[in-house]
Each structure stands twice: as C-alpha cells, then as structure tokens.
C-alpha cells in the first residue's frame, strides 16, 4: 500500500486521465488507448496486491465516457442541422383535420392487469435475490473487456464479412441486421468495433434520431486499406 498522504499509483500518469473528470471533458477521445490503460491498470493493481473496487469502478466509468465521446463525435454530424434563420416559407396551410370520436374496446383487460402484476411481482422478488447474492461489480468483467479489445483486428474482419454478405444480397445495412442473432453483450461489442471501423474510415455511421436505427455505409477503399494493414 502507498503511504498515507502520497498519491495512489492510479492518480499518476498514464492512468490519471481516467480519474481527472475535467481533463476528460477536454481531451480528444481518439488519443486515449483505453485497452492499454485498463490492462496496465489491472496489472499494476495485481502487482501491488491492492484491490480497490472504487478505483476500478471509476476507471470503467471513465472508459465508458470516452467511448460515448467517440460515438458522439462520429454520429453528431449526421443529426439534423439547425436551419439558418432563413425566411419562413409561405405556403398554403390547410385547416386542421379533426378526428371523429369513436369508442374502441382495448385489448387491455383486468386479466392483462393481473398478468402484468404477476410479472412485476416476480421481477421484484428476483431483484431482492440479486441484491443479496451478487456483488455489484464482478471483477472478471474488466479483463474480459480488455482481452476482447485486443482482438479488434480479427473482429473488424469478421464484421466486414457480415457487411459484405448483406451488400451482396442488396440490402440496406443497419446495426440491427448485423446484430440480428446476437445477445446484448455481443451487440455492445459489435457497436464498439463499428466505432473503430468508422474512425478508420471503413464505414460511415449515421442515425436519424437519438436511439433510432444506426445506418451503416460501407466505404470500399477503406476496407482494402484495413485488410492490407492487418
């Protein structure tokens, strides 16, 4: 353990970036190698035989923020541009159409309510079990993520193949098509890889609205570069 008063190791470079929130807001997220930082952070902790879950938590949280910054940077230009204060277009605007009033029996009955209650109560009991037995942050999650990030190149190839396959079928490529048979964790992994691919110019990502579908445009040359690089 560090002596009282002296800084813990993780507040020193290179890891300090993960613990300095003000700096985090200002940096260029692409200049941070998160995989490297997390891996060495864990090794250092192991070496010193010092396990600090709070520090791990903060490090994980900061990594997530950096990923978010990356995705924001990539997706921002595709959001609808604010219109410059141009003159409003004068056009005939018809009067509003008013809907006729019709009663409609809904499919929601007292039975639906009771079934829903049953499910809500079940998830409540599950919740209490979960809280009692499971630790908040399973320590193995960090090495898993790091190991996975080290496989970026092979994952990029894999996803490129999927995209090519969809292209050959003449389909519009969307995020949901790529993750069609994946579980939640896998979907997150694919999303991160797509961010890397976008950063390298292999694909362009765009979105019509927050939380809407992510559309993927495949840039041919980028891929050839990427495959020749790897």
């Amino acid at each position, binding site marked *: 353990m560090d002596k009282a008063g002296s800084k813990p190791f993780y507040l020193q470079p290179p890891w300090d970036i993960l613990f300095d929130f003000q700096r985090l807001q200002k940096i260029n997220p692409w200049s941070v190698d998160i995989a490297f930082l997390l891996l060495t952070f864990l090794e250092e902790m192991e070496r010193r035989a010092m396990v600090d879950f709070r520090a791990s938590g903060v490090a994980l949280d900061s990594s997530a923020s950096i990923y978010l910054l990356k995705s924001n940077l990539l997706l921002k230009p595709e959001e609808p541009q604010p219109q410059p204060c141009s003159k409003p277009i004068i056009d005939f605007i018809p009067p509003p159409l008013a809907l006729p*009033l019709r*009663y*409609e*029996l*809904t*499919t*929601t*009955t*007292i*039975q*639906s*309510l*009771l079934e*829903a*209650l*049953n*499910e*809500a*109560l079940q*998830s*409540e009991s599950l*919740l209490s079990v979960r809280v009692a037995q499971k630790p908040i942050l399973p320590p193995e999650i960090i090495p898993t993520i790091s190991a996975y990030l080290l496989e970026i190149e092979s994952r990029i190839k894999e996803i490129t193949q999927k995209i090519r396959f969809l292209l050959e079928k003449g389909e519009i490529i969307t995020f949901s098509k790529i993750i069609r048979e994946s579980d939640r964790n896998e979907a997150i992994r694919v999303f991160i890889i797509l961010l890397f691919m976008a950063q390298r110019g292999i694909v362009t990502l765009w979105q019509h609205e927050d939380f809407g579908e992510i559309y993927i445009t495949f840039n041919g040359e980028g891929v050839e570069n990427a495959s020749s690089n790897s």
Partner: protein
Amino acid sequence: MPALTADLSPTSINAKVQRKERIKGRRDFEEKMMIIEAALYVAGRPLDLKTLCSIAGSRSEKKIHRIARILVEEYKRRNTALEVLELEDHRFVMQLKSNYSDRVRRLAIRPLLTAGPLRTLSYIAYKQPVTQKQVVEVRGKHAYQHIRELAELGLITRERNGKDFILRTTDYFADYFGLSRSIQIMKRQLERIFKKHGEETLPLSLEEDERREMSEIEKSASEGASK
C-alpha cells in the same frame, strides 16, 4: 279544430306560451339525453352524476339522474347490442351486452398500454400509496417514462413528497377496470381475483357475477371499516 283567425285572448296567449315552453323543455331534455349518451359512449367506463352534470351543463344532479335513467329504459326498449346500466353510487355505464362479447372480442386489436407501462401500473395499483423511488428500484429506469405516460393518461396521480413522489391510481383507473375507488378495498379485490384465477383465463370484462362479487367485497370492507 283550431280557428283560422288569430285568437289574441289572454287565455290563448298563455296557452301558446305554455306550449312553447313545453316544446323547449322537451328539446332540452332530448338534447341532454343525447349528450349523456355521447359521454357514456366515448368514455366506455362508468361515469358519475357529477361528471354527467358537468358535461350536460346542468347543475341539478337530480334532473340528470332522471334523464340518465330514461336513457337506460330507452336502450332496453331498442333492439340493440348495447346496453346502458345504472351501477351502485348512481354511476352509469354503456357497454356491450355480454352475449355478444365473445363473438366480437377479436376485433379489439389495440392495447390501452404496452407491456412495460402496464406492469408498472399494476405494480403501483397493488403497492399504492408507493413512492416513485421504490417503483423505479423494482421496475428499472424505464419506469420514469412509464410513470409520466400513466400520469398523462390520467391513470395515476403523482404527489410531491420531499424529493420523491407518492404515486396512487385514480378513480379513472378504478372505473376502467371495474375496481373499487377505495384503495384499501381495491387492493383486497386485486388480491382476491389474483388468488382465485391463478393461471386461469379471465373474461374480457367483468361478468355479472364478478361485478356482484366485487361489490360484496366492497360492501363487507366498508362495513368493517365503519365498525
């Protein structure tokens, strides 16, 4: 036979005024009856006299009560698949006669709420009065959106309590599902049907006997409370 020349004697003028008044009164009566009918049709749930008065623009609950009862009779007289009923507490409801519900049930295609908000609603109904914090803990972060939606639909109320909110279901909720408006009694009713039906399928709407059972629970509960 009426005289062809105008009769301007005071008795005759008086009679004419009276006749006009009567016609006006009948028109007003019919108009109010149709507004009550319109209200019951659109609401699809029981409405109390206060609501009916406000819709019909009348201050006399007695008058509206009388008109609504005539509407009930009118529907009995008509050859129709719909019925207007007077429930306890002088509430009125328009509904499909039960012998038709099986055959047309499949035409109902849209739910009042999707699964998520409905679960949140049922949880609130069962646990009420309950804090927003507790609901979010059990139902997850999405519950914030559900709670907003439920409040907008008028199914629950949110009452500020420090930094948190206390959530309760509304009378509208109770009426929609045919439950008691008293929270205590409603919870007993929910428990009772919950236990009784277990995995069985419940009918689309409350049948006559269930409605009776519900009001028995309600009656015994309020008697117990007043003792």
